[in-house]
């Protein structure tokens, strides 16, 4: 199915990874927002009201991905945002922690761009 115009926020401290995600998803009708750390991510999420957030966990700076996820899911305005953890932390405990904080899905680096597209495609509206 072709999806409606979607607003996607990419949060990652590695510029190359952000660009990779952007290029991967740019084939559809999407608007891409960037954030390179936790604080920026929170600001852009509240301001830009994205539909989906692809959220890295380990980022430099005082706010990491877990903090961002918790804050957004506790806020009524932002709790509806679909959050996909996109992280190099691939262990089961990390995944469970992310999901417990309210993350809607979990995606482990390194990833296949095609799989990421499929995942985005299959998000229930």
């Amino acid at each position, binding site marked *: 199915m072709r999806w409606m115009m979607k607003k996607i926020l990419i949060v990652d401290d590695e*510029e*190359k*990874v952000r660009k*990779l995600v952007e290029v991967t998803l740019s084939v559809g009708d999407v608007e891409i927002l960037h954030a390179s750390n936790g604080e920026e991510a929170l600001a852009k999420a509240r301001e830009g009201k994205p539909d989906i957030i692809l959220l890295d966990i380990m980022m430099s700076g005082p706010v990491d991905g877990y903090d961002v996820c918790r804050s957004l899911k506790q806020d009524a305005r932002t709790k509806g945002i679909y959050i996909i953890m996109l992280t*190099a932390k691939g262990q089961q405990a990390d995944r469970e922690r992310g999901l417990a904080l309210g993350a809607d899905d979990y995606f482990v680096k*390194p990833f*296949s761009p095609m799989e990421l597209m499929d995942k985005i495609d299959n998000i229930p509206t």
Partner: protein
Amino acid sequence: MLFLRDMGIRTKIIASMFLLLVFVGLLSFWVTYMHEKKSLLTNMQNNASILNRALIISVTSRKSIAEKVNLQTLVEELSLTEGVFGVWVIDNSSRVTSATFREQVGEVASRPMVSECLSNGYYVSGFDTRMGEQVYAAAFPLKKGDHIYGVLEVAFELREYLRANDADRVRLLAQMRRDSRIMSESLSYSIKNMRDVNELVHIQRLVDRLTRESEIISRIMIVDDNSRIVAANELNRVGMIADDKGIRAIINGAEVYTRLFPTEKIYMVDMPLRIGDEFQGVVSIGYDANHYYTHLAEIFKFGLLISAMGILMGIVLSFQVANPIIRPIQRLTDVTKKLAAGDLSERASVNSKDEVGTLAGAFNQMAFDLARSKAELDQYSKTLEEKVRQRTRELENSNQELRAIQNELMEANMAKSEFLSIASHELRTPLTTLLGYSELLLTRTLTESQKKEFLGFINEESVRLSRIVDDLLDISRIESQKDYGFEKKPVQLGDILLKNIRFFAGAETGRRILTEIGDHLPPVGADDEKIGQVIKNLLDNAIKYSEKGEIACRAFLNDGMVWVTVQDEGIGISKQDIPRIFDKFFRVEREETKHIGGTGLGLPIAKYIVESYHGRIEVESELLQGTKVSFGLPVFKE
């Protein structure tokens, strides 16, 4: 001897000796006493048998004693006739043989009537006085043929006659004459049948004389074979039946029967009276036993004296015997007590060759063995204690070591987990770029510039990945070598520094590296390859984190250590980052460092190596002013 059970052996021996001696004393006393007693009695018995024989000789004529007794009985019976005052049988020597009044038997009847009758041989009668009383008496001769062997005299009472008138008197007198005549004649017939009347009197007289004259014979009694007393020193008993144990025994056939009457102090000897083989009666002789009792009392006293002396001697002897036995045992006991109290050096000094000596020897051996065993035991226990203490110490030490190792292991395990977590993250990041962009290149239609850009990304990340792998391998190798200890040999830090500077200078970095190396630096104990890596890492960082400016390297001696410093004029490190600068994978992340590749392992590796050689590494830095890293190693000592 039960009461002696709890006494000492000494008391037991003394008591035993004492009792034994008392027993022997009493036994000998008793034997002596009995022997004396028996000999005394035998003596008296012998006397009795001699007397018996004398009596038998006295009773020479073979006539029945019983008849003589019968005569007395007859006389006494006649005396009971009414009006009879008395009856006397008198022998031809005027001696009374039998009489109404027994006490008169044996007396000489020197009455004129009796003399007349004896001398003339005819019947004489008339008024007379007997024992102060007027009687009518008649004497009748007892004849055998012409031989007059005795006189029978009968006396009648005259009380009735004297009260009567004259006429009656004549009548009464006539009657008395008649009666006396009849009585005399009938009695004479009876007597005629008897044998010699004299014999009876002789026995009684013998008896009287014997008892009177003898000092030792106090009682004699002659009994016929019907137990009737024929003669006795007590006249009133003549004619009575002697119901006596001894007499019965002799009549029943015993040869002799003796008895002691302690209260009367009389020794009675009963023996048969035989004439030829014919049993005639019993002779019972009572000896005065006063002498016997006196003698016995003397013997008793003497015996007691002897016994007392024996007992006294026994006591003295007992002590004399007991002491030599007891003294060694006492010595042994004393020593045993000392031994029991713990004095193992004590020995018994008993040299006798008896059982006690043997016991003492065995005891000494035991004491010796005991002392030796105790010494061994003490030694053993001391050694054991020491061993236990040592083992305990060792165990405590090893426990501490084990705890330390455990802590180390736990820390190492945690560090390893953390390291793995971080390392996996560090590897995944470049891999994400490689995988993602290569897939895009393969699957998407891209512009040439895009392709070029993406390939550039892939190249960059490949280099980064390669460096991370190198560093990981380095740190892994270093950590594994740490367990075996790094090789240590004298190296010159200045030389190694120069060599590396030349390498970097030759790599066309376009940077100036100033070098200042102290003179005559002493060698340090290290491995030049490892130290080379440290210096390389420091120089690498200095060049990477400073785009321009000089890099200054120095080597100098300070406080027993040789120091190397590498100083740049680069971006510096913020204060909050300085404590984390040696953490693995830590990298200063600032706008300025975004494009600087690195793994965050260079400084941890450097610190690791330096500390392995007991050196120190320090960082001084100020934000945007530059950073100075120094490390020092101890001077090498042989």
